[in-house]
């Protein structure tokens, strides 16, 4: 029996211990938002948070999450109570086919939780494990930037403010 927390709820499951977490969440707990894309941790469609870290769950045996806190896209926000990134995703019309977007959002939200004001390079490094075949990368980047600290400040103050970012400087912060 393996015990862990799934979206803040304690759960337990009696299953082959080498079963990847992705399939446990999708087919045992019937939370279908996380997707299967490659089975090798190469595309990021299956990304969830394991103790706050973005992890590819298609290669993560469920036995490895004993006692861990797992967050899937269903735990990030709901249509009635969106995470700020999900709100930005909708406002920017990020998704096309949408299949990779749960994974994209989980990678992006883990990034912002650790680094609320990432540079372009930080964003690219955090998101480079997530493939989008429809080509939504530029919108993903804009959506993430709109909810970074500097992006948020610009939105709430309703005007362009000069925010000096020691990594990227003024120019990027205003773009």
């Amino acid at each position, binding site marked *: 029996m393996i015990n862990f927390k799934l979206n803040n709820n304690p759960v337990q499951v009696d299953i082959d211990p080498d079963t*990847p977490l992705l399939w446990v969440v999708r087919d045992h707990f019937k939370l279908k938002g996380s997707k*299967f894309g490659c089975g090798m941790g190469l595309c990021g469609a299956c990304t969830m948070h394991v103790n706050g870290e973005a992890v590819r769950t298609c290669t993560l045996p469920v036995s490895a999450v004993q006692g861990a806190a797992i967050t899937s896209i269903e735990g990030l926000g709901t249509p009635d109570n969106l995470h700020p990134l999900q709100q930005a995703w909708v406002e920017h019309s990020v998704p096309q086919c949408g299949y990779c977007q749960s994974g994209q959002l989980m990678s992006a939200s883990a990034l912002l939780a650790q680094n609320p004001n990432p540079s372009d390079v930080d964003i690219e490094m955090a998101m480079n494990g997530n493939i989008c075949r429809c080509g939504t990368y530029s919108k993903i980047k804009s959506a993430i930037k709109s909810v970074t600290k500097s992006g948020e400040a610009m939105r709430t103050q309703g005007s362009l403010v000069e925010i000096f970012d020691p990594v990227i400087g003024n120019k990027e912060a205003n773009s």
Partner: protein
Amino acid sequence: MKTASMTRRLFLLSTGAAATGLIVGCSTAAAKGRGYSAIAGAFEPNSFIQITPDNQIIFYLPSSEMGQGILDGLTTLIAEELRVQPSAIDVRQASLHEDYKNPEMGMQATGGSNATRAQFLPLRQAAADTAAAIRNAAAKQLNQPLDKLSLADGHVNVDGKSYAFGEFVAVAALMPVPENSPLRSPKQFDQIGRERPRLDALAKSTGTAVFGIDAEVENLFRAVVVRSPVLGAALQSFDATAALKQSGVVDVVKIKSGVAVVAQSYWQARKAAAALELTWEKTELGSWSSDSIYKKFTETLNDSSQKGLECCDEGEGDKLLDQAETMVAADYYAPYLAHATMEPLNCTVAIKGDSCEIYLGTQSVQASAGAAVYYGDFDADKVKMHPAFLGGGFGRRSLGDDVAEAVVIAKQTGRNIQVVWSREDDMSNDFYRPAALVRMRAGVSKQGLIETWAVRRVGPNIMGHMIDEWFEVLAPDYLNKGFADWLSKLGHPIFKRFIADPSNGDGIYGDYDTPNKAVRHVTQDPGLRTGFWRSVGHSSNAFFKESFIDELAQSVGIDELQFRLANMKNNPRLTEATELVAAKAGWGKALPKGHFHGLATHSSFGSAVAQIAEVSIQGSKIIVHKVTAAIHCGMVVNPGIVRDQVEGGIIYGLTAALYGEITLLDGVIQQTNFHNYPMLRMADAPEVEVHIVESQEHPEGVGEPGLPPLAPAVANAVFKASGQRLRDLPLRLS
């Protein structure tokens, strides 16, 4: 203009399908009544719209949503004429019914970038007639003259009072539905042309959008199929002893494509599948490798006794080539490519007695249902389709091969089955974009006008393989199965010997004013199955054509932009797009040191697209910094989605241009997953800027036309940057 939709249409015509009622084959039973289930008390004027007494407005979406935004686009058309907000409409994917056939294709399918073009008027008409019916009913019920009533936001307004549409549905249901009601004029449009967030963004940002792979039914078992390493080889023998001992495994069954392992969970089935021992028959494809295929293509290209089939012959053909002031010739190559949709293929089947329900994302509800009828032996009226969102289509999800496996496994085991393809299954069992080796020759005058354009192409065609897949699943019930199977094989010789596959000529000769043209294709097919891949023939032909155009311009020392404009006087749409992109990207202006511009222009699917790529070289790496694009696609329904589609085509095209190559070794596909068939990732994605030419003309395609010009735009910039003219895809510097 020959487009992919015509290719698909041609399939129906060339097999006599249109005349023999083939299209009706699987849908005669379903054709009775409306395409959806009735709701008590609702007004149901046609197969597209239902309005309930509590003012729920339902639209049955006839096209498949695979990312291209057709859910948003077609809902906008309904909203415009019905006078409601698009977000107030409850959109549901239509199941199988003849009313949902694509008017251009004659079948219920989505592809060829024509869903907006083909349904722009019919869907608006359906909504306008529905609105007129509500207005008539309101006039009667409120006892008011018609001209005092106006419609807005799902309400009828009269004398300062406002009534929801739903209040009039009972009366509307008893009155005749008006026909040919006037459509709103572009000046009146308040939804069409407006930019707003796409309607499916919320579901797709919260993990709540349901894709085929997300289907759940009671007592669902998962199946994994082990198929031949050489595509199409028959199973000789297999030993399932070890597999059957594995945890959770309930059945192992032999099916047409291989052996299926059925288990409680996907992981159990996947693990047990590795324990199967299988031997396969030898096939001709097993004797081919990429090197020998390329060698054979080259021999055929040089063997002038093989004339091939004519794709185009205008004016004097290639007869005047020798007399040209400047004659240029060059050979180009494009490899096989896989689709690699993010959602691997899958299909879920639930069987109840003699009926079956199918859950999947498909580009053709009709072909998918047909596959259940043909392979699963179900009566057409016993097959119920539950279409889901597609995690990418790009042409891959237009066949019935996913359904064919699932229904047979379900039938043989008597269980509800979900077949899930691994990434490896998906990549090595695709219908690939055909490879092609091409000899381009042209005669150019001193003034820089193209006088002769001659192309000799060698490679597989698509139609033979498509007919092989489609014929059975679209065949009418009365056709004997063995006969249908035999007929389906005829596509191969027909398109090798008698009819040129239109996709081979697509876009390789049409854009420029050249008076003399000769384009021929010699079919040389090692037997690897091929299929429609985003933009089909244009995907390789634009690379050949537009790279070669730069070679022509450079051979006579004329600027590549001016050379194109001088040779496209009869192509106003492409001219407008080209002039717009040149102005926006600053063609000819100074760029950062080491950066170079490359231009390509191409018409496909009714639209014209011009692109300028800004490229630099670092070592042997090609860096694409920015792509500026302009599209002329007629009237625009949602400009945001048009820009997204062009950008999507650019990213998809750049993956192919920089990395895309499927290779064979002794018939076995060498690429298996994203480590050896890489995709463009965020860090390497260029900035993309898309401009739309203002137009009030009928809308044209946007899902595919953004792709074809990308590879040549990059290749043309690479030549400027490095002096290397790269004539083979993917682009690799030596």
